[in-house]
């Protein structure tokens, strides 16, 4: 350890309570800054990974709407899906139809249902049991329809895999009848990516959901997801533009556009993160600046002696500067741990947002962003020590020695 470091550490150790408080203050400021950076960048990254879970970079929704943001559906779905699949730049297309089906005689009256094609679906991953039949498999019209349900469905209904129940559509409340119903067997349990964990959800083959909903829905879908054969943003944008130009009744949204729109809706959090991040930087700067300034004022005589026995101006400057650096470094190290703990706590609070997909996080650890923010605080802290260091190096030696001797 160099002499300069030893001296700087000795100075900090001279007032342990003061040093401890300063380190604690910087640690809290660093934790807040880290949290705010995680909040500002985490939402986008979390949403991006959520959208790209199954590789689909494009969402095709009814004109003027966001996916599943309204009850609007797209008519002529078969022709649209066929046209998309015929495009050599598109690797896969997954149509889906969302609706609410009644559950006569069950503990809760209805369930959010997704009509999907199981061989291309990108809405869930099977966790237990059997999947739905692939498109083209023929089932007897009277045979129970295999359904994949969420864990919350099994918990709330008290059912198990293998149980059968009836789903119905076209309810007439006055006559207490349903227009169409079908026996389903709970064949599998799935983890649904885009549905809140607490929402019971059921996935059924798309064609059977259409049949249940009646003639008006025989060729409808709520959304189609498309995967571009080439994953670069230029190719995805080219496919999106082609869909927009060739299908006037739909809106095609790329992952980037969807992220932009979500960011717009959640811009409040980003701006809050920016403001609080700036405040924490300011607090860190002021703490170091105040502490080092007062420390220098207290040690004017000592610094004058050092200068009188031949210590160079640069040497004094570097030593005082080192004090600020050591304070900031110790605070940042503590802040890193504190920040991760508080981020988990804050994420737990925000994940209670109603309607939030289970896989969505507000605070996401991103090493690059975290190191950048902590480096920013370190630079801010060391810069804060620059002015007092310069003042310390520039003190008039004779006058300071006399003042120190006379008191």
């Amino acid at each position, binding site marked *: 350890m160099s002499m300069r470091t030893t001296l700087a550490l000795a100075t900090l150790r001279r007032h342990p309570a003061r040093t401890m408080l300063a380190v604690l203050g910087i640690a809290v400021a660093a934790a807040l800054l880290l949290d705010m950076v995680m909040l500002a960048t985490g939402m986008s990254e979390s949403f991006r990974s959520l959208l790209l879970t199954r590789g689909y970079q494009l969402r095709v929704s009814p004109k003027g709407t966001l996916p599943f943001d309204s009850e609007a559906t797209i008519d002529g779905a078969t022709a649209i899906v066929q046209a998309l699949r015929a495009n050599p730049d598109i690797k896969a297309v997954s149509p889906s139809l969302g609706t609410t089906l009644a559950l006569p005689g069950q503990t809760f009256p209805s369930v959010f249902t997704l009509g999907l094609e199981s061989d291309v679906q990108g809405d869930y991953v099977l966790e237990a049991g059997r999947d739905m039949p692939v498109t083209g498999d023929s089932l007897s019209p009277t045979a129970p329809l295999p359904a994949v349900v969420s864990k919350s469905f099994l918990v709330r209904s008290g059912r198990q895999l293998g149980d059968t129940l009836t789903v119905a559509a076209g309810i007439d409340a006055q006559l207490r009848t349903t227009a169409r119903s079908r026996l389903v067997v709970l064949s599998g349990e799935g983890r649904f990516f885009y549905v809140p964990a607490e929402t019971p959800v059921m996935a059924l083959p798309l064609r059977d959901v259409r049949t249940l909903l009646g003639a008006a829905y025989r060729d409808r879908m709520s959304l189609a997801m498309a995967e571009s054969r080439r994953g670069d943003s230029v190719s995805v944008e080219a496919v999106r533009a082609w869909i927009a130009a060739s299908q006037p009744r739909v809106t095609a949204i790329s992952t980037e556009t969807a992220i932009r729109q979500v960011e717009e809706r959640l811009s409040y959090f980003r701006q809050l993160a920016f403001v609080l991040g700036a405040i924490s930087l300011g607090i860190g700067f002021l703490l170091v600046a105040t502490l080092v300034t007062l420390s220098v004022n207290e040690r004017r005589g000592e610094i004058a002696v050092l200068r009188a026995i031949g210590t160079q101006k640069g040497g004094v400057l570097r030593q005082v500067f080192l004090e600020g650096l050591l304070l900031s470094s110790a605070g940042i190290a503590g802040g890193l741990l504190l920040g991760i703990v508080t981020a988990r706590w*804050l994420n737990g609070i925000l994940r209670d947002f109603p309607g939030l997909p289970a896989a969505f996080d507000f605070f996401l650890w991103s090493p690059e962003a975290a190191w950048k923010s902590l480096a920013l605080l370190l630079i801010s802290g060391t810069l804060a020590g620059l002015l007092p260091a310069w003042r310390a190096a520039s003190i008039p030696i004779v006058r300071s020695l006399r003042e120190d001797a006379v008191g």
Partner: protein
Amino acid sequence: MTFRTCCRVAVAIAVVLSSAGSLAAQGDSALSPTYGRVAPAQRGIAIDARMAEDFGLRPGSRVRLSGSPGTFGDTVEVAAVFQRKADPAEVARREYRIRTHLDHLQELLGLDDRVDRFAVGVRAGVPVDSAVARINHVAFGFRAHKSGDVAVQSSRTFRVVERFHRAIGLITVVASAVFLLCLLLLSVEERRRDIAALRLMGISQGTIIRSIVIEAAVVSVIGSIIGAGIGWVSSLIVNAHFQQVYRTPLLFALLTPEIFAFATLTSLVLGIGAGAVAAWRLVRTPPLTLLGR
């Protein structure tokens, strides 16, 4: 992503600004229920103020309204412009809202005789719980909920944000408290020589501690008042900014007497505590040591 059951529709609107001059605003009476009456040939709708501003619409303007994109739909007249209520749950959604007669919307969507929900008012003296139980006893395909329960559920977003703000507030209070403690300790310790001189003049330890504590308290209160002033100005800037961004009358930051009292009390307690600790440490040190002798 939730499958919303509100009556928002994919509305394709072609704006046809009326060249025949503005018609008189029809007000709310134009939107009263039409049951038992024949619907007028040209229907009226109400649009929100944001939409009116963005599309240059006003009462009397004519627009085309359809239930699905690409279809011609109905030509309707803007009968009224309404101001949306300040709803925190909707503040970030940059959607337009229109209000139509129920039968008109059903017709546009081909929904015949369907509604998403309806409100039921019970007669005076009838317990709401028993009314809910009776409705649910006969319900088929729907459920009745108490308005209070619905309000609790729909305000969940707001409560989550409130909890988040409290948590962030706690962290910033801790950071500010440490900063305040540090500053007060340092400001007292910087005056070692003054305190040593007072001790050598014969001023008692108690008097010195009291004077330092009073000084710290005064500094804390003055600091709190200045801080409240800065906070108040900041809240004005924050509100002006977010109200413009989200085009809402909602208040995003509010300095209430309770918040001011909390901040002042916190800084007063911290100030007195820090002052007392620093003063106690100094008066216990021999005066000549404080003078560096």
